[in-house]
């Protein structure tokens, strides 16, 4: 009788331990999942910040190019535009798309240069002066969040008709150089792991 009672105690203890162990394991998994989520969120934010940094670099480079080359800047800048560089929903002939070379750009640390992209596109027929600049960035191997990716875009105003008989300086906002590249307010952002 005593032996039977001991067995029952042992079995009851074992069952309870099994259940407690399972509950503990699930709790542990939950905490680890939360840790992982928090880390991924931060990596995505860092990728977004680096994507914005590359966007700013490309904006500065574009502005510098237009400032240096004057009236011929637009033709020179878009000389290497190719239809293959257009996004899938903007493939018609009215869109002009350019993939900017990253060789001469000072890239921010932490970017995977083999996957980074800077693209510019514009509606050549309806708004050649409005360029959409898009950057796509992934974190490189030196970063704990390798592979985290983010894209951002910014519209720029490019003064393509800022000279000649059609240009009326009175219509230009005071204090802004008509030959200067300018941002159009509003930036779309996206980030993911």
């Amino acid at each position, binding site marked *: 009788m005593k032996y039977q009672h001991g067995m029952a105690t042992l079995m009851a203890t074992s069952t309870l331990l099994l259940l407690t162990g399972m509950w503990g394991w699930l709790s542990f998994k939950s905490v680890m999942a939360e840790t992982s989520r928090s880390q991924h969120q931060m990596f995505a934010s860092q990728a977004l910040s680096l994507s914005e940094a590359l966007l*700013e670099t490309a904006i500065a480079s574009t502005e510098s190019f237009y400032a240096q080359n004057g009236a011929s800047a637009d033709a020179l800048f878009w000389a290497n535009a190719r239809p293959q560089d257009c996004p899938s929903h903007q493939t018609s002939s009215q869109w002009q798309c350019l993939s900017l070379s990253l060789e001469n750009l000072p890239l921010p640390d932490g970017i995977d240069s083999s996957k980074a992209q800077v693209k510019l596109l514009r509606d050549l027929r309806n708004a050649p002066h409005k360029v959409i600049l898009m950057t796509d960035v992934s974190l490189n191997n030196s970063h704990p969040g390798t592979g985290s990716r983010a894209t951002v875009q910014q519209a720029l105003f490019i003064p393509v008709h800022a000279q000649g008989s059609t240009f009326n300086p009175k219509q230009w906002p005071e204090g802004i150089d008509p030959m200067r590249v300018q941002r159009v307010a509003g930036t779309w952002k996206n980030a993911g792991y």
Partner: protein
Amino acid sequence: MLEAVLASGLVALSLAASVRLSMVSLSANQAIRNLDMASALAQDLGECWGVQTPLCLQQFDGASAFAPFANDAQNTWSRTWQVSDIAIPGAPPGSLKELRIKITSPEDGKTAELVWVKRQASTPTWVGL
């Protein structure tokens, strides 16, 4: 008797595992809290650098060592930053600036470090129609 010893052993083992699990969970929770806070502090300073309001500029005057959690004043962190010019071929100096924020926090006897990079081109925002 043997069953009681086995049951006691199992209970003791589970208690030890439970304590260990709690410690790991606590440590993980603390790491999450630190990570979220470090990330928020870095982003806050980065955004402030972009807008340059008086309230934001005050953040750049503050001491680099601080205690981020009111209930843990002994846990001091440091936040340092550096602004540098990034050279763009053909562009005048100051066309592109980089803010590098570094946040260090103590974690399990070591020092965790978070680096955040922000860049800003001097290109103005279009104010026309």
